[in-house]
Structures are given as C-alpha cells and as structure tokens.
C-alpha cells in the first residue's frame, strides 16, 4: 500500500516541476538569462581547459597593453597578461563570491523573516530593529572597518573555508548587508500567510510552531525566495565588483572587480585600452542582467495572479 502511495506522489512532484519549467521557458527573459548564466558557469567551472592556467606577471605571455589581435583576442594588460585568460579566471571568483554570499543572505534573511512574521509581538519588534540596523549599514563602510580586523586576526596569506582572507571578508560583508532586504520581504509575506486559515487548521491538527513554519509557511514563500534570490545575486556581483574596485579584493585571485581596479590603476582609460576595462565590465553587466531577467521571469511564473486559474 505504501508503494502505491509513494509512487504516484513522486510522480505528482515531477509533473508539477515539468509544468513549472515549461511555463518558465515560455518567457524570453528566462531563456536569455539561463543561457548567459550557463555560459559563465561553464567558464567558472573549467577555466583551465579553455584558456590555460591563470597567468601572472611572471608567466605573462604578451607585450604590455596590446590591443586585441589574433593571439590575444581581448588584448593584454599592463604586465602583459592575456585579458581573456584573467577574465575567464575572474568569473570563477566573482560567481563563487556572489553565490555564496547570496546563500548566506537567503538563509539568514528567511530565518529572521519567518520567525519575526510568525511570532510577531516582541520577537518581531527586536528582530526588525536588528534588521533595520543591517538594512542601513553601508556595505563599503562595513567592509572598510572589518577588513583590517580580519586580516590582522587571521593573517593575509591564510585561508578561511578555502577563501583567502580578503575574499572571505567580501563574502561576509555582502552576506551581512543583503539579508536585511530579504528578511523584510519574507516577514511581510509571512504576516499575511499566518492569517490564512490553513495555518489555523494546522494548529487544530496539532502541528507545532516549528512544523507550521517549515511545512506550511516556507513552501509558500519559495516563489519570493527564488525570485528575489536571483536579484540578490545580481546585487552581490555588483557589490563584489565595487568592493574589489576600491582595493579590498585579492590581487592574487583576481575577480572582475579586481581587474577593473587594476585597469583603473594602470590608467587603461587614459591610455585608450578599452579592452582591458571593457572585458570585465561587460561580464559584470551581462551576469547581473542575466540574474535580473531570470528573477523577473521566476516572479512572473510564480505569481498566481498572472496564472490562468483552471
């Protein structure tokens, strides 16, 4: 009897998932977003086979600041490194930082938002004051303040969870400054969800608060989390770029932001080296835009008001 039930139930999930994807990909934005992201994820996953190992000043293969030619499709930088090589390797750092920061932000934001919205009262007041604090903290100031502390405590060359210290600082800073937005959003949704009769019904059925939050509230928040998660990633990529640009990045593991910063320092703009600024810049724009497009497409797909009611 159990198998009889379990079988079809798995089938139901599968059917629902299929239906969801077919609806999602009815939108052009979803196609463009996913295609662009897939392209960059491949770059980030296997930079070696595509462009060879990361070039350093010592292993640089070309002249200084040469414009694009057949050998260096995107030209070279001020120490002779191939720009294509460093941009592809930069994808890995930028995307990893953005995705990890987003995961942190979503987990913290969702937990705080659901707790605050579900319990209300004093819990809500205190959690929301905390959220407001992180909401208004500018990420740059926070980064500038905690970066030296971290570097001092851990040491510049050391690694934390596989990241070099300065990159870890960036992850933490982005995570800390972006969850408040998620928490506010999730809280307001939870406030309306907890008034829904199905929450009362779950309570009469004897479910605990934790189980109501996880089994009843959270699944109904998935659309918001997914759609806004994509937007948070876009924001994180920007923030990472900006933080690296002002010199908080790690020159040994260059991200797109670090590259932009190096290009600026090398006077790429005044020297007319458009390829050096343009390549990482275009990548940042494309990836952010891809996530925004995907986020909007997810929002449209999940939003029940735009769905035909059977």
């Amino acid at each position, binding site marked *: *009897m*159990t198998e009889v039930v379990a079988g079809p139930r798995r089938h139901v999930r599968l059917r629902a998932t299929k239906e969801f994807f077919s609806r999602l990909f009815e939108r052009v934005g979803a196609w463009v977003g996913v295609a662009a992201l897939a392209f960059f994820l491949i770059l980030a996953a296997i930079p070696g086979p595509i462009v060879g190992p990361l070039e350093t000043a010592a292993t640089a293969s070309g002249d200084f600041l040469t414009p694009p030619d057949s050998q260096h499709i995107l030209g070279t930088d001020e120490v002779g490194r191939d720009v294509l090589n460093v941009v592809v390797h930069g994808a890995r750092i930028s995307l990893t930082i953005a995705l990890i920061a987003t995961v942190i932000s979503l987990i913290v934001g969702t937990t705080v938002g659901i707790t605050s919205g579900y319990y209300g009262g004093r819990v809500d007041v205190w959690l929301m004051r905390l959220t407001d604090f992180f909401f208004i903290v500018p990420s740059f100031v926070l980064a500038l303040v905690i970066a030296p502390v971290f570097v001092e405590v851990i040491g510049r060359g050391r690694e934390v969870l596989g990241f070099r210290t300065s990159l870890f600082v960036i992850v933490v800073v982005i995570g800390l400054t972006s969850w408040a937005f998620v928490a506010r959003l999730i809280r307001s949704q939870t406030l309306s969800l907890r008034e829904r009769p199905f929450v009362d*019904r*779950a309570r*009469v*059925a*004897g479910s*605990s608060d934790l189980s109501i939050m996880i089994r*009843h509230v959270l*699944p109904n928040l998935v659309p918001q989390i997914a759609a806004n998660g994509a937007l948070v990633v876009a924001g994180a990529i920007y923030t990472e770029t900006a933080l690296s640009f002002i010199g908080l990045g790690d020159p040994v593991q260059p991200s797109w932001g670090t590259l932009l910063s190096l290009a600026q320092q090398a006077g790429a703009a005044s020297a007319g080296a458009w390829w050096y600024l343009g390549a990482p810049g275009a990548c940042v724009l494309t990836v952010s835009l891809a996530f925004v497009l995907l986020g909007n497409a997810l929002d449209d797909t999940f939003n029940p008001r735009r769905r035909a009611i059977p």
Partner: protein
Amino acid sequence: MDSILGRSKGAVHAIDGVDLTIGRGEIVALVGESGSGKTTVGRVITKLVQPTGGRLVFDGIDMTSVQGFSALRPYRHRVQMIFQDAYQALNPRHTIFDAVAEPLRSLKLVSSESQLTERVSEALSAAGLNPPQEYFTRFPHELSGGQRQRVVVAGALVVKPDLIVADEPVSMLDVSIRAQILQALIDMRAKQNLALLFITHDLPLAWLIADRIAVMYLGRVVEIGSADDIIFNPKHPYTMALRDATPQLPADGRPSGIKALQGDVPSAARVPKGCRFHPRCPLALDRCKVEDPPALEVGKEHLAACWQAN
C-alpha cells in the same frame, strides 16, 4: 493577557459571558450575524484563541489554561474544526493525502505508513470522496468547491474526534451540494456519537441540523433552546427579528413579506448600556436601558435574556 482581539489599551470583548454546554453526540447550532462573536466562541473552544475570563471544561477537565502544542495534543485528538472557506483552509502546496494525514502525523496517532494510508482512505470515504485513492495525489486547486470542503471534513474526521466545531461549513457552497456535506456530518454523528457545534448565520439551516440552537447577539447568547422552540416559539425579540428577516419559501406560492429590523449591529467596542439589544428592540422599556437582563428560564431547557421573555 488582557484581551484577545484588542491591544492592551481599550480591550474589546468579542464575546462576553457566554455560557454554552454541548452534550455527547449532540448537535448545537450557534446562530448570529457577523460581529456577534459566534466565530470567536468556536475559536476559543478549539484553543485558537485564549479567553480572558471564564472556563472551558471538556469531559470534566478544565482546559482554560492549557497551552502549547504538546500539552494540547490529547485535546486536539478529541476536538477538531471544520473551516468555512475550504480553499483557504487547505495549503495550496500540499496534496490531499498530506492535508488529511496532517493531524495523524502531528498527533502521532499512527505507527506505520500503511496504517496512515488506511485511516486517510477511511476518512475520505466517510466524507464522500470515493474512491479515496483517486484523490491522494491531487492538489486543492484541482478539485471543485464541494470536493475541497469534503477534504476539510475528512481532515477533521480522520482523528475520530468527540467534538467538531464547524464554522459555517456550507455557506460558501452551492445550494445543491450543501445537503451532501451536512449529510456526511450527520452520518458521523450516528456512527461515532460525534458532537457538533454548528456555527451559522442561517436560522432555517440551524433548525434543520441541530438539536438545540443558541442565538448570539453582540458577544452574548441571548436565547438558547431546542431547535423547534427557537423557530416556532422564540422569546427574545432579536430571535424573532432574525426569523422574520429570513426570506421564506412561499408554501402557497405567496411571499410572506419580509420584516427588517432597523439599524446595524453596534461595534463590539461600544456595547450599549443595559440590555445590549435595546437600541434596536421594538419592545424596549425604560428598564432595558439601564439593567442588563440575565438569562431567564422561559420553558423547558429554554433560556432567554430578555426582561419581557416571560
């Protein structure tokens, strides 16, 4: 714990001094307009709302101060609720099986998956969804309004409770299928000696299904008695007004002519002094404006809170 519906300042008594007993296997209807507090009575009984005064005694045990989901488990096992709007009372992301199985799982009433399936099937059939297996993997939006309400009924029947609080269980349904749902409840009463508190605004419907009827006005029971007494021999002017305002089917093809009471139900925040019905009462005396009438015995098991009931 100063109030249940208001903030601590200026508490609003949604219900005020309600005395109600329900016998084993008895069907009691609670009739009133919106704002009469009938739903709040149901929510107090199902422990969704904590009363500020008075006692809630179930089977000899004082349940007034029992709180928290684990302490309430034995009570939840015996007291269940049916909600008005089945579409809202079912989590849109849970299958019908999960919705009906929820109380069994959270109250830990079954030990094996096969037992769970058996109990769920049994409840679905009892609520008139046959064959039950066909509904297991479906979602609420795939069912008709009547079927959804049957699922909610099944979710209450599945724990084999002693008392079900049914809050306007058929008012959202089409006329032709109301009787089906009511029949399922009456059948369960006959089979399991189930008691039912039937909350409704529809006096003829209350008469049809209930043994006794309690009429509420502005947070208080103004008249209680056997169904026939309340309909054919009402003693409280409000009960009479309610009866006269109900459109009647013309037995001889001629309309009886509706009589409408003047005015609106006052807000629960501004309960009139004296008898709370006196500003709208066609029979009000000077005494009614100052003295609040107690529930007076006007017949066998027939009480009315009116100075002129005798």
